[in-house]
């Protein structure tokens, strides 16, 4: 098979640590005492609350509306009362707070009637797309880009491949693995809905070869459909969108482009399952599968979790030994970020909570100087020059970092993983990216301010000129009036020709001439 020959040489092989959480089937997490639903669980503009404190809401009811094109709705995961709409800490590397809707579930779990789209195959893609948008679906793989926006942006492009990304290359995480194993028909069903929207020539489910159960289940579910399963070798970070595309199709997404530019659409398998739920079962996105793992948990596993569930309650369900907890990480050990406290909610992009015991994820040793060994460049899946980017980021030479395609970095951490000098390379890149984005925003703001300032200056000048013009007009009018009074018989237009006026003008002229003469003599 030409796949192995095509397999690029980048990547690393960290310890997988997936067995801990794959032993048991997906369990339903218990109903929490409170749900915390951030308005921003996706990339784009935050949603806007459409409920008020004290309202009773039903499961599946819209509680926050999308506030722009790139935005996503938020639905109530279960029935209950809105206790407040406040700033609450959200899972974000900054540890800052964002507006959240707090709901106290009443335990009845009453739901709005499901609104499926039966026989979606006969419907216009635009209608199905609108349904997906209304269901609040965002990418469940990691970044959380609104799915309807992603699919909408490719409608005109000719799509050759629709890839369903079930690679899940990051250590510890098994949420997609369990989903594909247990709910293969949902994943494939969702893939077919997406295929109806983008009309690809091939619909391919991509899975790494370390998930034999998922592969078998998907193959079974694909029988008799247009979808097929493609198995790829296990290697980190094959699950990155651009990396998956490169491995399966041999094509590279151009710098600054999107996969649709090369005829590919790639979505996560969890997103496909959510699309299936929304279109076929008529349920919006109110829950997701989360892996709870790490040595601090006595009973790790995968859970179907309502969005907004506090992480503390999930950790209790897994019998966490608090004395044995070292770090709490959202996401995997390569790309995740540390959580400052367990009082944060599960959001649409939470695929894994890793509660590590001391020594499980050893802290990186002290940073040492770069020895130019080049291991990072070999590991980089985006074919960048990590050392070069490091110099530029350290020296604040952001323009040159950008010229070396800093923004093609997917922050996978492969470079930092192989670095013998323990340099936290990705942190430097994130810093540089943040500074560049900040400078760009400042520049746009300055440009607007300049325009407004110039417009105002121009407006003031115009107003002044108009005032002056009106003043002159009034003076002229007054003059004419005065002239008219002096000679009631003379018409205003011919006032200048009357003998008295001529005499007056002559006198003024003479006086002026005399004054000018005096002036010149004095000076």
């Amino acid at each position, binding site marked *: 098979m030409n796949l192995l020959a095509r397999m690029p040489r980048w990547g690393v092989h960290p310890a997988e640590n997936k067995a801990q959480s794959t032993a048991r089937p997906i369990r339903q997490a218990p109903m929490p005492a409170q749900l915390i639903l951030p308005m*921003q669980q996706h990339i784009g503009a935050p949603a806007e609350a459409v409920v008020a404190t004290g309202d009773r809401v039903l499961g599946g009811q819209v509680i926050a509306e999308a506030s722009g094109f790139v935005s996503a709705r938020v639905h109530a995961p279960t029935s209950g009362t809105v206790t407040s709409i406040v700033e609450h800490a*959200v899972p*974000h*590397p*900054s540890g*800052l707070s*964002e507006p959240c809707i707090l709901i106290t579930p009443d335990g009845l779990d009453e739901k709005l009637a499901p609104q499926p789209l039966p026989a979606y195959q006969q419907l216009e893609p635009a209608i199905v797309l609108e349904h997906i948008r209304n269901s609040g679906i965002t990418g469940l793989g990691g970044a959380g880009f609104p799915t309807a926006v992603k699919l909408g942006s490719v409608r005109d492009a000719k799509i050759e491949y629709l890839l369903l990304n079930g690679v899940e290359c990051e250590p510890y995480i098994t949420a997609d693995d369990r989903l594909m194993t247990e709910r293969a028909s949902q994943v494939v069903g969702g893939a077919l809905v997406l295929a109806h929207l983008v009309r690809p020539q091939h619909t391919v489910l991509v899975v790494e070869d370390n998930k034999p159960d998922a592969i078998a289940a998907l193959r079974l579910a694909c029988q008799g459909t247009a979808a097929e399963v493609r198995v790829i070798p296990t290697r980190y970070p094959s699950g990155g969108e651009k990396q998956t595309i490169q491995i399966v199709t041999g094509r590279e997404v151009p710098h600054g482009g999107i996969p649709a530019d090369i005829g590919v659409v790639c979505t996560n398998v969890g997103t496909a399952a959510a699309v299936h739920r929304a279109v076929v079962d008529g349920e919006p996105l109110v829950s997701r599968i989360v892996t709870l793992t790490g040595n601090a948990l006595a009973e790790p596993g995968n859970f179907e979790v309502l969005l907004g569930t506090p992480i503390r309650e999930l950790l209790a369900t897994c019998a966490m030994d608090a004395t044995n907890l070292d770090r709490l990480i959202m996401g995997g050990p390569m790309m995740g970020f540390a959580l400052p406290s367990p009082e944060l909610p599960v959001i649409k992009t939470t695929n894994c909570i890793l509660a590590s015991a001391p020594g499980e994820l050893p802290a990186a040793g*002290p*940073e*040492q*100087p770069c020895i130019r060994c080049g291991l990072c460049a070999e590991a980089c899946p985006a074919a960048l020059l990590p050392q070069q980017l490091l110099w530029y980021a*350290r020296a604040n030479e952001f323009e040159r970092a950008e010229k070396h395609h800093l923004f093609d970095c997917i922050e996978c951490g492969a470079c930092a993983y192989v670095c013998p000098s323990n340099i*936290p390379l990705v*942190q*430097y890149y*994130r*810093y540089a*990216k*943040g*500074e560049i*984005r*900040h400078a760009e*925003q*400042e520049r746009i*703001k*300055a*440009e*607007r*301010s*300049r325009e*407004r*300032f*110039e*417009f*105002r*200056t121009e407006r003031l000048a115009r107003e002044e000129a108009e005032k002056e013009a009106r003043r002159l007009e009034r003076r002229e009018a007054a003059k004419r009036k005065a002239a008219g009074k002096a000679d009631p018989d003379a018409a205003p237009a011919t006032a200048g020709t009357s003998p008295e006026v001529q005499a007056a003008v002559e006198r003024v002229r003479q006086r002026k001439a005399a004054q000018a003469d005096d002036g010149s003599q004095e000076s």
Partner: protein
Amino acid sequence: MSMILTAVLALMGLAVVFGAILGYAAERFRVEGDPIVEQIDALLPQTQCGQCGHPGCRPYAEAIADGEPHNHCPPGGEATIVALAELLGREVLELDEEHGEVKPRTVAIIREDECIGCTKCIQACPVDAILGAAKMMHTVIESECTGCDLCVEPCPVDCIDMVEIPQTTQNWHFPLPGSAPGLIATDRQGAITS
């Protein structure tokens, strides 16, 4: 003799031809305005705050082009001074504290209950970011406010506050990781023992 004459004639001929080309080019590709002022203006932060002593960023850009020091802009801070020094081939100077110090970006907020609708702040705002009419409550369009401070002083009832722009997950970004290591072991002793 004729050789010298030929040489002189040839050079004169060339001079006439090139002179004509240069003359044409000077007309054809005439540069309107002063491009250096545009370039300086593009580097200034456009707060239009007047702390430099000029009524806006563009007048200050013109003054810099005429030789005024390029360290009179507190909102721009060090970054602007460095960028200007690079553009103009001048020395990187310390910010002239006489014109103010570097402060975090702020935005004006009108305490709307106390506003009497005098329109004085509207007239003071250099970017037309205050909305209101006579004897009507005024409000600041926060997204357009440059935080220049100019509206605070004219307000007769002191109802305008300059508020620091709060940090949110939208404008937060990753900080620089801990200081880069030294080259020899003794430089790193702190890191190793800690």
